[in-house]
C-alpha cells in the first residue's frame, strides 16, 4: 500500500500541493483527476522520487521516500506526460537501453524485450525506428519501457492524452491486463471519461488539495448524494414516474425522452432491487434498469467541485 501523509510541495511562492493525504491500496487502478495546474504531475513526480516533498512523507509499505528514494525508484515504473524517446533507436534497442540501465542481466534481455513488445502488441515493430511509430505505438512503447524492471507500481502521467479512440481503448485493455498481473497503477488525467472507464478508484485534486477520494461509485455517491438511475420503459411512463416518486430513496424523477426516465437514488443495492420489483409488480414494461454510467455522473461531480465549493 502507498500512503501519502501530509505532503506539501512549494515552489517559491506557489503551493503545488497542500497537506495532501491519500492511501492507495495495492492492485488498484487509481486515477488522479484535476484541472491543469491542480498538482497531479507534482504528486506523480513525488511518488516517482524525482521530487522531494517540502513537508510530509510518502510510504511504500514500510519504506519512506525521503529516506530511500533509490529503493522506491526500483519499485516504480514512471511514464511521464511526454514520450521521452530516442528517435534514432529501434524499438528493441530502446528497450534494451532501459533494460541495461535498470541492471537487467544481458542474457535475460532478449526474452524480456520480446515479452514486453508482445504485451504491448509491438512485436512486429521490434526493428522499426522509434520515430516511425505512431503516437499510440510510442505511448505503448513507453509503457513497455516503464515495465522493463517489473515494477510493483506504475505511475502514468496523462497516458491517454492525444491518443485516438482506438489507441485509448487498447491502452485501457492493456492497463486491465497489467492490473491482472498484480500491479498498482496510478494514472493522472484531466479527462474524466477516460479515468472513469479505466480506474477502480479516483482522487479529485484541485489547487494542490485533495477534494475527494475512493472508488468511482463511492465518490460519485458521496458527492452527489447518491446514484442516478436510468430506466427505459416500453410504455406507461407516467405510471412508472408516479411509482418511482413514491419509492423510498428516489427523488428528482423526470422523463428525458420517450420512455427514458432518470431518477436520483439514495440507498444500497437491496433498496434498488426493491424499487425494480415494485415496477415489475405493477406490470410496468421495463426494458432496462441500471445506475447511470459513472463517467457522466463523475463529470457533474467534478464540475461542482471545481467550481470552487470546498467539501467538508
Amino acid at each position: 500500500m502507498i500512503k501519502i501523509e501530509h505532503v506539501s510541495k512549494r515552489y517559491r511562492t506557489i503551493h503545488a500541493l497542500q497537506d495532501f493525504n491519500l492511501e492507495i491500496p495495492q492492485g488498484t487502478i487509481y486515477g488522479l483527476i484535476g484541472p491543469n495546474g491542480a498538482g497531479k504531475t507534482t504528486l506523480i513526480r513525488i511518488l516517482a522520487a524525482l521530487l522531494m516533498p517540502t513537508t510530509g512523507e510518502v510510504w511504500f509499505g514500510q519504506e519512506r521516500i525521503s529516506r530511500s528514494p533509490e529503493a522506491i525508484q526500483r519499485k516504480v515504473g514512471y511514464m511521464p506526460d511526454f514520450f521521452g524517446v530516442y528517435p534514432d533507436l529501434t524499438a528493441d534497442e530502446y528497450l534494451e537501453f532501459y533494460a541495461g540501465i535498470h541492471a537487467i542481466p544481458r542474457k535475460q534481455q532478449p526474452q524480456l524485450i520480446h515479452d514486453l513488445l508482445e504485451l504491448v502488441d509491438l512485436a512486429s515493430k521490434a526493428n522499426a525506428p522509434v520515430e516511425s511509430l505512431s503516437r499510440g505505438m510510442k505511448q505503448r512503447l513507453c509503457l513497455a519501457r516503464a515495465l522493463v524492471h517489473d515494477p510493483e507500481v506504475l505511475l502514468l502521467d496523462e497516458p491517454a492524452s492525444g491518443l485516438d479512440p482506438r489507441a485509448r481503448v487498447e491502452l485501457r485493455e492493456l492497463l486491465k491486463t497489467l492490473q491482472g498481473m498484480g500491479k498498482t497503477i496510478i494514472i493522472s488525467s484531466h479527462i474524466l471519461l477516460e479515468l472513469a472507464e479505466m480506474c477502480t478508484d479516483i482522487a479529485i485534486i484541485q489547487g494542490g488539495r485533495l477534494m475527494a477520494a475512493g472508488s468511482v461509485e463511492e465518490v460519485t455517491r458521496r458527492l452527489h448524494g447518491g446514484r442516478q438511475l436510468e430506466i427505459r420503459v416500453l410504455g406507461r411512463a407516467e405510471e412508472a414516474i408516479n411509482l418511482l416518486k413514491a419509492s423510498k430513496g428516489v427523488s428528482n424523477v423526470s422523463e428525458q425522452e420517450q420512455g427514458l426516465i432518470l431518477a436520483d437514488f439514495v440507498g444500497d443495492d437491496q433498496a434498488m432491487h426493491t424499487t425494480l420489483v415494485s415496477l415489475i409488480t405493477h406490470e410496468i414494461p421495463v426494458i432496462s434498469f441500471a445506475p447511470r454510467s459513472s463517467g457522466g455522473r463523475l463529470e457533474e461531480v467534478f464540475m461542482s467541485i471545481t467550481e470552487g465549493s470546498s467539501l467538508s
Partner: protein
Amino acid sequence: MTFSALLIKELRLRLRRERTMWIIIVYILLMGFLGWFYLSRFSTINGYGPFGLANTGISLYTLLSQVQLFLILFITPAFTATAINGEKERQTFDLLLCSRLTSFSLIAGKLVAGLTNAFMLVAAALPLFSLVFFFGGISPQQVIWALLVYISTTVMVGSCGLLLSTLLNRPAVSTAVTYMIGLAWLILPIILYVILLTTGNNAGSNQPPTLFIWNPIIALLSTYTVGSAFYFSFGSIHLSPWISYIVLCLTASVIFILLSMKLVRPGASTLAQRNRLLRPDKPSVMA
C-alpha cells in the same frame, strides 16, 4: 553494466547521425587540403637535400599539429556540452534518474561517448600525419607526445563542457559558454604576456612565463623539440611544458568530473540524509 548500456546507446545515437559523418569528412578534407596546399606551395623552398626535406617535414608537421589542436578545441564542446541538458531538453533525463544509473555511470558514459567522437577525429587524421615521416625531421616519440597533449586537451575540454551541460539548462548556452571558456583559456595568457612584455616585465628571460604553464599552444610547441629547450621549474623539479600541461589538464578534468557527478543528481539522496533524523520510522494510522 549500466555504464556500458549508456555508452552503447550514446554511440548508436551519435554514429547514426549524418552530422557525425560530415564532421569527419570535413575535418579530413580540411587537414588534407592544408597539407596539400603547403606541399604544393612551399616544399621547394627548403630544397631536396636530406636537411631540406627534413625541414619540409617539420614545417608540415607544425602546421598540421597546430591546426589539429585548434580543431580539437572547437569540435570537442559540440560532443559533450549538450550531453546532460540535451537529455533534459529531450525530456528523457527523468527516465535516466529513475533507473539504476549511478552519477558516476551517467557522467562517465556521457563523457566517454563524447570523447570517442573527438578521438575518432584524431585517429582519422593519423594517416595524414604519417605523411610527415616520408620527409623525416620528426620522430615517432614527438608524435606520441603531441598525441598525449591532444588527448589531455580533449578530456579537459570535454569534461568542462559536460560540467556546463550539468549546470546550465539550455544546450545552446552551455555550448556557447564552453567555447568562450576555451577561447579565453587559449588567448588570455597570450594577451597577458604581451601586456607584460610591453610593460617591461619578464624581459630578458628565455623561459616561458608561468602564465603559460597551462596553455595548449606552448605545450604542443614544447613537444617539437626532444630534450626540451624550455621548461618550468618548481624548486628542484624541472618540467617540460607538455608534461606540466598534461598534469594540470588531468587534474582539472578530475575536478570537473567530480563536480558534474555531484550536480547531476540534485536533491534525492542529500535530502534523504537530511530527513533521516527528522521524520518518524513508521507510517501513522490514517483515519
